[in-house]
């Protein structure tokens, strides 16, 4: 009988320490599955951010470094330039990528660095207790927006993937979600494509993953799945934002 599903070799045999209902475990497992499927585990270097996802280095079973807050694209740039035949990716949250690291992601994308970026957008700073992120929705209550985010005070939910899509250096950007099995499968397909692009030397690829943070949103795990569908996706629509291989 053919084995069709098993524990990924690219995941260590340990338990995720994320909160119940958190989406990071799903995204990090998808990355591990994709790396297994391409058989690139032994030539991959992952870069964990500052934030909840920093603990990825405890879960992935390949070389991983942690970068200073927001700087994974700069670290990835150097690693990939020095070792162009390795597979280099960053895994960053919305605070890391869209706030403190906005300059680094913008310029890595603009240089067309041949790296893969997994951008997890859960519209909040999780690790520090639930502050407003650049991606926080208008009206969304957080620790630092106790009456809900107001545009006149804090601006608008940042659609950084769309902004990055404007840059000539970008090869591929797609937004996915991990709130139901169908979306998880689509997310895996997009992540797979983002790694495939790097293997084929096509350049900068980014997958934005809309992800659950029930603790940060002060909802139950089940409500968090619905919250993505009802609140997050209308502001951050799923789908391909840019794909150079499709435009002729």
């Amino acid at each position, binding site marked *: 009988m053919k084995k069709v599903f098993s524990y990924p070799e690219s995941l260590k045999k340990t338990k995720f320490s994320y909160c119940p209902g958190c989406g990071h475990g799903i995204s990090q497992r998808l990355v591990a599955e994709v790396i297994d499927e391409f058989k690139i585990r032994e030539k991959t270097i992952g*870069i964990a951010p500052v934030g909840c996802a920093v603990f990825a280095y405890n879960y992935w079973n390949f070389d*991983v*470094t942690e970068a200073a807050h927001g*700087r994974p694209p*700069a670290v990835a740039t*150097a690693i990939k330039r020095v070792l162009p035949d390795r597979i280099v990716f960053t895994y960053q949250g919305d605070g890391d990528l869209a706030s403190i690291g906005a*300059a680094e992601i*913008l310029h890595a994308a603009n240089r067309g660095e041949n790296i893969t970026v997994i951008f997890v957008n859960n519209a909040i700073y999780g690790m520090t207790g639930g502050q407003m992120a650049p991606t926080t929705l208008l009206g969304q209550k957080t620790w630092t927006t106790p009456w809900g985010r107001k545009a006149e005070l804090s601006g608008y939910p940042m659609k950084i993937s769309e902004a990055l899509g404007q840059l000539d250096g970008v090869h591929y950007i797609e937004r996915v979600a991990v709130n139901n099995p169908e979306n998880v499968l689509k997310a895996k397909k997009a992540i797979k494509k983002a790694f495939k692009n790097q293997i084929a030397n096509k350049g900068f690829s980014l997958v934005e993953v809309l992800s659950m943070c029930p603790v940060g949103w002060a909802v139950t795990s089940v409500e968090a799945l619905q919250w993505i569908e009802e609140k997050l996706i209308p502001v951050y629509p799923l789908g391909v934002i840019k794909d150079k291989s499709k435009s002729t």
Partner: protein
Amino acid sequence: MEKKILIRGNEAIGEGAIQSGCRAYFGYPITPQNELTAYMAKRMFEVKGVFIQAESEIAAINMVFGASLTGVRTMTSSSSPGISLKQEGISYMAACQLPGVIVNIQRGGPGLGNIAGSQGDYFQATRGGGHGDYRTIVLAPYSAQEMFDLTCLSFQLADKYRNPVMLLSDGIVGQMIEPMRQNWDTNDKNIEWKVRGEDWILNGCKGREPRMVRSLLMEEGELEKLNWELNRKYKKMEEQEVRVDLWNIEDAEIIIVAYGIAARIGKTVIQRARRQGLKVGMIRPITLWPFPIQVIKDIAQKVKSFLVIEMSLGQMVEDVRLAIEGKRRVHFCGRPGGSVLEVDEILDKLREISNLK
């Protein structure tokens, strides 16, 4: 026969890096160090290394972090305000025990300051600069020749200790064009340094267990353990890496302590002072950290007093006073804000000191 060439201080650093096997350089425009970045743009292309003009000094130091963990020799350079921006990255490198060379061609400060050579970053360079308990070796060249030689030494020490090393110079030494010995045979084979990183670099886990490079250590006692481990390394640096240039100290009654460009001026002062009958000598720290505490202590027993000259409001003078522990008078003569110390004002100070009872 040894050949001499004319070279600008900033470019001598660049060639020293290339000859030391540096193959990844990351920079960002800031005066007065731009000749170095331009030199690396050209030379890295020639030696098939990596050159990136980064989007900021912050990105540049984090690129150094990334390059270093692959095992390649790597460098970044900047000037005072840009070095402030790099401090976070230097702290991370120290925590992760990643080697790398950071060049500071100092200019006047604080704030945006000006673009004239200055020595106002001594505190920042020798006290770590960034957050947390860590140390960086700081080397202070005072000529084009030393820009080259101490750059080579910086790479060796960075590798020896797996620690960031700072080359602390200034806009004057950086901009001056001077003769320098062209001995390009300092290739890696002849330099004493451990082959890099087979047991710690990240290059894909083929044939070995996966590795991680990190500085977040949340388990109880984990961080303290690292701190003590780092401390053992810093103690070893203090024991083994002190370098100092002693000049005219045999019969000296007054000792000038100066580094970098101030020491160049100081040597002229000493020549003139001796013609006037003042017995003056010089201690020139080449390593600002580790600081030559014992050398100063020993010499203090034989002389009357000290004069520290700096192109700042007085920073290294505190280390000299700490070394002497109040046993001798330590005077200071300095000019901040990128103004150059005049030989005459230092001579006046020397006469004033020598007249003190």
